[in-house]
């Protein structure tokens, strides 16, 4: 790619990011729900179920990392819907008949998704502190936890973008991304996997969300790390590579016929 091509590609990406962020900011309902819903879930688990769940620590300390992952899942499903909206309106033909790289369109949505998730995650963390979350983490631990969460959000956003590309409508994008909301319930987010029936335990222990949660937990409240850090990193990196490849090749397929 020539130097000029590279800078034009960058400027296209910036324009598309600018667009996606603006559209997202104006979609007040979605933004509001994506912040409010995780807080309601946190309140529900801490005040309603929490008393009945024994995790060996204050329940709020246990549950916050799980809530953070639940938040990102919800954020990602919004991304799938935003991409599906573009793909199924006339907008995609306009964008494709412009001299820009196809990659720029998805990059815009994914970046907006990461930004929105970063904001909603920060708000959830502040709320959890107000509700009594007492992490035992130093600045380096916080940085590591946030870094891993961002990597996870990035990977999940690309996966959501891929789902948005194949969805035939905004509604079906929302249905397709349902499992992103559901998967955290089958992890160590809310209860310890040891308490689950024996057939469900392997599912819970070997799905990607559990090691990510355990790693964040270890950074924030000092539970034993074990191999979780590396497993989480491997899952997130693998998922990111897989999702970027999937989303871009699906995009190319859907837009060249």
């Amino acid at each position, binding site marked *: 790619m020539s130097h000029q091509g590279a800078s034009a590609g960058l400027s296209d990406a910036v324009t598309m990011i600018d667009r996606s962020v603006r559209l997202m900011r104006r979609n007040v309902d979605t933004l509001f729900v994506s912040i409010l819903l995780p807080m309601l879930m946190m309140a529900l688990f801490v005040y309603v179920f929490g008393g009945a769940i024994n995790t060996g620590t204050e329940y709020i300390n246990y549950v916050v990392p799980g809530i953070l992952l639940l938040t990102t899942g919800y954020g990602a499903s919004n991304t799938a819907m935003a991409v599906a909206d573009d793909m199924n309106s*006339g*907008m995609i033909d306009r964008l494709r*008949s412009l001299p820009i790289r196809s990659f720029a369109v998805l990059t815009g949505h994914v970046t907006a998704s990461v930004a929105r998730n970063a904001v909603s995650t920060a708000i959830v963390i502040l709320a959890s502190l107000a509700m009594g979350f007492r992490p035992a983490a130093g600045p380096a631990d916080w940085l590591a936890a946030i870094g891993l969460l961002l990597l996870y959000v990035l990977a999940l956003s690309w996966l959501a973008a891929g789902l948005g590309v194949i969805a035939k409508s905004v509604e079906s994008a929302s249905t397709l991304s349902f499992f992103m909301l559901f998967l955290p319930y089958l992890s160590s987010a809310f209860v310890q996997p040891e308490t689950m029936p024996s057939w469900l335990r392997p599912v819970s222990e070997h799905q990607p969300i559990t090691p990510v949660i355990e790693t964040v937990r270890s950074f924030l409240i000092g539970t034993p790390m074990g191999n979780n850090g590396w497993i989480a990193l491997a899952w997130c990196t693998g998922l990111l590579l897989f999702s970027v490849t999937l989303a871009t090749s699906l995009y190319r397929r859907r837009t060249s016929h």
Partner: protein
Amino acid sequence: MIVEATRLRKSFGATEVLTGVDLQVPEGSVLALLGPNGAGKTTIVRILTTLTRPDAGQATIAGYDVLREPAQVRGVISLTGQYAAVDENQTGRENLVMVGRLMHLGRPAARRRTAELLEQFGLTDAMDRRVKTYSGGMRRRLDLAMSLIAQPRVIFLDEPTTGLDPASRSTMWDAIGELVRDGTTILLTTQYLEEADRLADQIVLLDKGGIVATGTADALKAQIGGERIELRFADEMQLLKATGVLDGIADELVLNIPSDGTAAHLHHVLDVLRDNGLQPERVSSHRPTLDDVFLALTASDRS
């Protein structure tokens, strides 16, 4: 020829939507692809704008091959599709600046061009409102303005006025007319014969994926004969008697008589009527419309 296509073919599954289409558009002219739904109009536009690959045939825009040099093609064209491709949650101005930036105009140039186009399309008052508050006509105008931001050499308009009320349609026609005066080449598709008649230098009649006829509106009309005189009678008896003395085609209570459009011929018809004591209720003279042309040219495959 700024747009040139040879033997374009395309099938979707078992359905053949283009059966070998040739097109030539001289620079600065307006070509209308006219035909009913399913005739293949949109597929041709999608191939020429690099959105769809043809199964066979080739096409160039300003000398660039649509298959081998899509990026260069996209640099000289613009497309306004059937559905207004605008972001509802951005303002009119934001939509325009965005497209200007994506055409690599640079921020100051994009802003300047945006202001010009808002003015030209009568959207200056609404420029800072979100597009979701716009009327259908305003959306189409914004859509067209977005297509013009980088002053493309060839503009593709896919059914630019479908679904618009008559007033908005006429505003849109004026806007298109202005582009023509500026020397832009336009390829438009339409189902409305009136639209093709009014805007196009050259009309290509399409049916079932193939070209049925090509020419100016007048040439096409001449192809099925000139004018006709229409006589409407009060009852069957009179109509029957008239068909005995005048050459024409009867349809219900109307007799259609081919004419060369001269006063002498009209006199002759009226004389024959008087001599035979016939009193039509109504006498009128008609130029053939493109509707007549279309029906006449496609009638053979329909029956």
